[in-house]
């Protein structure tokens, strides 16, 4: 019997071992339903407050929301468009959710998506001699690597120099997004195009289509795989367990001999890879080229999605769909009812604030 085990036995409150024991029990308790209900309540509240705003603007909220729903479900094509919209949010959201679980506040998805997209575009433009399957695979791999490198850079600055990860990832976001502009105004840009964009990719580098007569590409399949993978990683592997302990109690993690820096680097790199992958999918599956500003707001959406799904990576899927559908539907809402589509940001921001408050209240309830 090791010291740790003996200490757990008499469970003196306040001792590190008791803390570890308590943490483990908290982690294994099932709280899926409660989280789901909280998230639903937060979304409902956000939609209600936003409805009031629509009223203030002199429009009918019910008509607006109806147009939003019709905008997503009206035709197969629209539904496919909405699924495509959700894909990058889900992919990047899984990575951010894993980071959040370990209390690593990685908000760098925006920059990681951008850098990943540059890498993928470069491969897709320059590796034309390869067979199509290899072109796509290599481009996706390059995207993931680019995103992972950008994220690892932030993690290293965090670990070596103690700059909070929020600031590192945030500042690198601006640089990453500007790198896209730099690439497009430089070598990667299409000569003579009126807009900063790369030349159209060859058909061989496009992502395969999933549903004929729609834009639906196979990205959504990757998104589902990422969600399942994230779930398995978090709940069925040692690395996932370490992340959970780190998030629940850094002291307990330290006591259990978990190398927090290595875990942080690992989870940040993984999240960066997923974000970079999301960026490449956007290039290879939606635009078939790199476009300036293609990823505006993606990173923040990934953060919001991860937050709503904070307890469970599986929940990233519905949360990502919610955000993607919201944006796809908002365009229809603007067109048909004349409600500005920027209202989506209001819904997103409010949902986040309410979810955060719910989590905060929940944490307090747990403590007692």
């Amino acid at each position, binding site marked *: 019997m090791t010291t740790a085990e003996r200490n757990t036995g008499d469970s003196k409150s306040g001792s590190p071992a008791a803390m570890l024991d308590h943490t483990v029990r908290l982690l294994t308790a099932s709280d899926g339903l409660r989280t789901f209900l909280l998230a639903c309540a937060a979304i409902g509240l956000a939609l209600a407050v936003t409805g009031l*705003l629509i009223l*203030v*603007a*002199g429009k009918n909220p019910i008509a607006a929301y109806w147009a939003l729903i019709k905008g997503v479900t009206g035709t197969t094509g629209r539904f496919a468009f909405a699924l495509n919209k959700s894909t990058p949010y889900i992919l990047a959201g899984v990575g951010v959710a894993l980071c959040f679980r370990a209390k690593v*506040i990685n*908000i760098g998805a925006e920059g990681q998506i951008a850098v990943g997209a540059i890498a993928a575009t470069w491969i897709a433009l320059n590796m034309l001699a390869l067979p199509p399957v290899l072109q796509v695979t290599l481009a996706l791999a390059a995207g993931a690597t680019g995103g992972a490198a950008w994220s690892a850079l932030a993690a290293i*600055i965090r670990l*070596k*120099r*103690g*700059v909070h990860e*929020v*600031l*590192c990832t*945030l*500042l*690198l976001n*601006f*640089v990453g997004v*500007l*790198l896209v*502009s*730099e690439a497009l*105004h*430089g070598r990667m840009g299409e000569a003579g195009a009126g807009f900063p964009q790369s030349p159209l990719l060859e058909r061989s580098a496009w992502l395969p289509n999933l549903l004929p007569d729609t834009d639906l590409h196979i990205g959504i399949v990757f998104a589902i795989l990422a969600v399942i993978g994230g779930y398995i990683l978090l709940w069925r592997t040692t690395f996932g367990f370490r992340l959970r302990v780190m998030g629940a109690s850094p002291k307990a993690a330290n006591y259990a001999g978990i190398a927090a820096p290595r875990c942080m680097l690992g989870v940040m790199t993984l999240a960066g890879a997923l974000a970079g992958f999301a960026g490449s999918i956007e290039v290879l599956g939606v635009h078939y080229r790199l476009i300036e500003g293609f990823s505006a707001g993606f990173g*923040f959406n990934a*953060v*919001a999605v991860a*937050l709503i799904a904070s307890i469970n990576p599986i929940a990233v899927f519905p949360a990502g769909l919610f955000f993607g559908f919201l944006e796809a539907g908002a365009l229809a809402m603007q067109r048909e009812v*004349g*409600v*500005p589509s*920027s*209202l*989506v*940001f*209001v*819904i*997103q*921001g*409010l949902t*986040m*604030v309410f979810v*955060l*408050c719910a*989590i*905060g*209240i929940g*944490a*307090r309830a747990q*403590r007692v």
Partner: protein
Amino acid sequence: MDSSCLIEITAATVRIGTPLLFAALGGLISERAGTFAVGIEGMMLAGAFGGAIAVLTTGSPSLGILIAAASGALVGAIVAIATARFRADQMVTGLAVNILALGLTSFLLRGLFGGRAPVIRLPTLGAWPIPYLSDIPVVGTILFRQPALVYIALLLTAAMTVFLAKMRTGLMLRAVGDGPEAAFAVGTDPVMVRIAAIVVGGALAGLGGAVLSLQEVGTFTDGMTNGRGFIALAAIIVGRWTPFGALFGCLLFGAVAALELRAYGWGLPVSSYVIQMLPYIVALALLAGIGRSARMPAAIGAAFTRH
């Protein structure tokens, strides 16, 4: 580079640094009381919007400045209640209100004017040369021929230094940021102090937004703060959580931006995008250079619970 050019760049540095300084002072007061100020970007944006809309509808610049501060304070109040009262995570709440402010300003800009964003062209707040002082060579041009809000920002820096170091309320605020339990034990309510600090900080950040919309450009566009709130956050850290340190940080970032504006004319071998990256890279490099030696308020980030 001749001396008139240098003076011009320095004057531009002060001008560009002013909105940053307001935001940094606002963030500073929130952080010294123990709450990360990630939301100042949103508070600035709300201030820029409120100020521009108020001047557009009433024509009164002083009312515009007042409304700008109130708009920033309103966003601050959301952060304050969520983090101090409901113990929401400070970093992510900040991000959330940034999105919220972006959406709300963009929506209201259209929603309040019948669905289409109005064309806003406001006269910018002009320079207020200070008699006699503005005639001093070099220093006069740089410091005393600026718009009024620049002077206010500089005075605020001094006032906040005195407040934090010498006044009882300032001491209390710092106590809440360093050890809320101890502050609570001597009869201060850390939750209320934090709420007040964030709301006041929001008002200051809102003024920073007003500098942008009313003094710099005379209009409001979606997301016009464009990351300045985050640069202000970096300035706070560079300045090690003191008002004059933050002033130094803001001037530094102002100087980078002023050089950036100038650099187009110098025919440098790098593109404008690389130059635009400079403030962010400089901020990151400075933060990395300071590293762990930065002494942040001890209890920052941790929600306060009564035991």
